[in-house]
């Protein structure tokens, strides 16, 4: 596929997303429900990982340091 510009490429990507998930055939309001559920889920995943992963990493690091000291 040749694309003239980046927007066209994005449009094509969105089209592929529509086709693969099957929401291409849905009515607009159904599409927006699906999109909002999916994107809010993704946003929540990103947010929780942003909030909790650093803490987990810190704890793991501390634990490993402790273990080393202990040994």
């Amino acid at each position, binding site marked *: 596929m040749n694309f003239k510009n980046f927007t066209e490429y994005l449009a094509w990507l969105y089209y592929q997303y529509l086709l693969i998930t099957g*929401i291409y055939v849905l*009515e607009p309001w159904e599409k927006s429900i699906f999109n909002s559920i999916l994107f809010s889920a993704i946003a929540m995943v990103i947010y929780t990982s942003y909030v909790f992963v650093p803490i987990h990493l810190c704890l793991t690091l501390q634990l490993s340091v402790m273990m080393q000291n202990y040994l």
Partner: protein
Amino acid sequence: MTESPATKPANGDVCQRVKNGLKPDRNGLLKSLHRCHEQQPKHHCHPEEEEEVHAASHHGSLYNRSFIESFEETPMLVAVLTYMGYGILTIFGYLRDFLRHWKIERCHIAREKEEQKDFVPLYQDFENFYTRNLYMRIRDNWNRPICSVPGAKVDLMERSSRDYNWTFEYTGRVVHDVINLGSYNYLGFAENTGPCADSAAEVTIKYGVGVASTRQEIGNLDRHEEMEKLVAKFLGVESAMAFGMGFATNSMNIPALAGKGCLILSDELNHASLVLGARLSGSTIRVFKHNNMQSLEKLLREAIVHGQPRTHRPWKKILIVVEGIYSMEGSVVRLPEVIALKKRYRAYLYLDEAHSIGALGSRGRGVVDYFGLDPCDVDVMMGTFTKSFGAAGGYIAGKRELIEYLRSHSHSAVYATSMSPPVVEQIITSMKCIMGEDGTTIGLKRVRQLAENTVYFRKRLREMGFIIYGNMDSPVVPMMLYMPAKIGAFGREMLKRNIGVVVVGFPATPIIESRARFCISAAHTKDMLDRALSVISEVGDLLQLKYSRHRIQPSLARPFDNNVYEDIDD
């Protein structure tokens, strides 16, 4: 998932791709019939790295030509995504059903009246979940009215829908010159000019259009008699009879041939008319895997060894029901093997040549001609005039006794109004044209043109990287789409670019194997095919349809596994 190394060509003769997880055909029959034949390890089939076996060579045992058929495996990722797509659509279907049930949105489908709510339901509620919630959304791809002769090009009535395909409005405009890749117009006899149309018009003036009686009463015209003689001659059998409807030919004649205490062995992908006929007959039906001779032989053996269930009396008769070209798979029946099996186990053979008559064989005489076999080996030859001959109706041909019997016993012979004279005339003229009896070579040229177009079209599609099912010589070309949204999108995008195609989804195919089906015609010129191919390629890129992971490769040397007869154990 793949079983490639096991996909051995039997006798070095034939090899076929496995269909999605089915066991590979090993053609036990060939081996069992020709056990004394030496295996010829010179002929190899080379399964490519993963699976697909394309190439097949032959040595003159049963096939007089190479029999190449492929059913490429569904890529795993595509299968997963397809199921996911159906999952999402199903969830939304339930949501819509919920809204309809609580009267939040208007319900367009048929349902019981308020005062009949407590009765036994007339409309099955869940049965048409698919129709209501999936088919309806992409319904604009089907049932589109056309307003010209369905030849190589066709005019469509433009229509639009404001309520997402629940109702349509005609805009009054016409979409002109859409390349027609959907009609079963194999030999291009669907035309409004030329000798066929002229003679049909003449006959209309002489006889009128309606007959208003059955064949047994005052509806038997001289044209009917002539047509039946001609059909018998065309097929090379003793006698033939014609019916006004192809579907009824199957569904009404099988019950006349088989009954209680008979066994019908039916291919799993047989057409609905054959299935209906078999069910109406009241005989026991057993289904063998598609075109799988090992499976058929296993059933035949079991039938003969065990006889009828409980009583163990022998079956009154065993009828094998197969089709010439399977319209959804584009595969050609392994007729030489079926005939060998039928002879070996003394069964009868019912061959439905709906798609193959006219479209296969060097003389256009169907699958029997294609394999160079004797038509007398097939007990009941059935076919339609709807496709290659551009007319309507169906025929049954075979031994004289058989036809005489059917004339008095078949429902569609006794009760159906006889065929309209112009239709009969169209059949006669087109058939004479194919036989060369009109003194021209137009018919023969068309048969050759069709074969050429088919090979060309299939080859090009395959090279482009689409997954194409079926036999290399079959003018029915199924191209896999898989995902439910792509069914709708493909049809719409093609029509936007002025190509009319048929897309097929769930009830007609397995749920994940949605496809587009092209029917090649002799009327297509090379320019049209090229134009269609370039558009298909463009849309294929747009929709990412080029799933195939293989390219055709000539057979390479690879040690041929010499396993001889494997007992059937699945």
